[in-house]
């Protein structure tokens, strides 16, 4: 699903990611761990095509995305879902609208949108909050809205950059359950986190990055395929 083939990314002279090679298969659930400034966000930004790699080859969903034109980027992003630590909901749109506009981007018919959005909101356990604005919700509820938005178009990959970073332990665990559910439906999940308790409890594949190098790739303590 995602292949990093000797990818190097530099910011000026600063190397953020060096000769990174990794295969992530369809249906995988991968934790990206490592200290601050290690290169985790860089890894994710490369997949999202926010930045271009300096060297190497990058394949996402069977497509070589090493170099994409500005026109091709929207197409790629429609096959990905993204969730952030700070939720990034639109404050002047209701919960329904926040999720609906991800469908509007794909020019779905209003009738289809009206049917599917409540379904996904229910799935995320926030069906009741459809008409509320984000600032009327708790952090956990906002993250549920963000996940609903990320998965509404059935993405092949769900990318999450510290999605539980702003949440308390119990809420974080609830969010993890939802992400696990999404993964069980066949979506590949790549999640950056600092929460070692979560990583341990989930028992999924872990990829550790330090100073731009992938230094560990294990699953439940056993080396994973690289």
């Amino acid at each position, binding site marked *: 699903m995602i292949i990093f083939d000797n990818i190097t990314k530099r910011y000026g002279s600063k190397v953020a990611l060096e000769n990174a090679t990794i295969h992530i298969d369809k249906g995988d659930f991968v934790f990206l761990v490592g200290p601050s400034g290690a290169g985790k966000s860089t890894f994710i930004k490369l997949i999202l095509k926010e930045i271009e790699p300096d060297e190497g080859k990058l394949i996402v969903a069977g497509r070589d995305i090493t170099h994409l034109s500005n026109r091709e980027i*929207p197409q790629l992003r429609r096959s990905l879902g993204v969730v952030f630590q700070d939720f990034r909901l*639109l404050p002047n749109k209701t919960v329904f609208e926040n999720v609906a506009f991800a469908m509007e981007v794909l*020019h779905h018919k209003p009738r289809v949108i009206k049917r599917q959005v409540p379904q996904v909101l229910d799935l995320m356990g926030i069906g009741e909050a459809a008409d509320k604005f984000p600032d009327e919700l708790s952090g956990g509820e906002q993250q549920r809205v963000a996940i609903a938005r990320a998965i509404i178009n059935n993405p092949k990959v769900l990318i999450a950059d510290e999605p539980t970073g702003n949440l308390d332990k119990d809420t974080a665990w609830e969010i993890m359950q939802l992400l696990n559910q999404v993964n069980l439906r066949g979506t590949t999940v790549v999640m950056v986190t600092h929460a070692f308790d979560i990583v341990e409890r989930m028992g999924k594949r872990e990829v550790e990055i330090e100073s731009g190098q992938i230094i560990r790739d294990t699953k439940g303590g056993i080396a994973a395929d690289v």
Partner: protein
Amino acid sequence: MFKGLGYSLKQAIVQIFRNKGMTVASLFAITAMLLILGLFFFLTVNVNFITEEIKDQFDTIEVFLQDDQTEAQAEVIRNSLSQLQGVANVEYISKAQAMEEFKTRWGDNAYLLDGLASNPLPNSLRVTLENLEDGELVAEVSRSMSGVEDVRYYQTEVNKILRISEGIQKGALVVIAFLIIVSVVVVSNTVKLTVMARQEEIRIMKYVGATNWFIRGPLLLEGMFIGLIAALIALGCTWAIYARLMAAIGQQAVILLSTSLVETNFMMINLTWIYIALGISIGAFGSILSMRRFLQA
């Protein structure tokens, strides 16, 4: 241009109401610009109109006859004036005819003239010039003829007025051009604030795979909407002001300048198109200008 026009329209309207502050600021900016522009348009058109009227009157010399002149004597003077170089024709205007002309020109205020016991206007000859350069000489010769009371020919005054009006028109044009530039800058800055306030929104839209046109569409329509609404507001204001102005000084202008002002209808029909076209263009141009920077990759 973009798929999902329905989405763009809906978003534009929703955003206009949700971002009231920005909407009002942009509206105010465009309306104010259009009103000032309208004022200068009003000035230019009227100055132009009055100038043309004056120019029309400028090729005639009024020769007033002494009261004791008979119509036969007047005919003799008329004949000799007709012989002069540069004269196209000479028309005899009786005092009664002169009064009629006066009354038509004064319009609604003509009743004031009814109060006169006798007609104070003299009989006159109206000399139409063929060649304006000969005006001064014709006026001088007329003045020296016997039976002539007075000659009215305001060449220097008219020249002065023409020069002033030319200056006003040129000045107004410069001001109008300047105003258009300023209003685009003001609007683009106002819209830029809107876009900056929505930078986050734009970023998120891009994460879910929105194309640039999908993002631009609603903002562009929003700018055009605001421009259109501003044009309508400005139109309403201008109409109210101009109609009132015409009511208040229209007739006085006739008496003071001996010409009328441009009709309200003519003024409004032209201003309608100017305001709407300019309002929408300023709104659209301002939006595009302010968005460019935020839509790169």
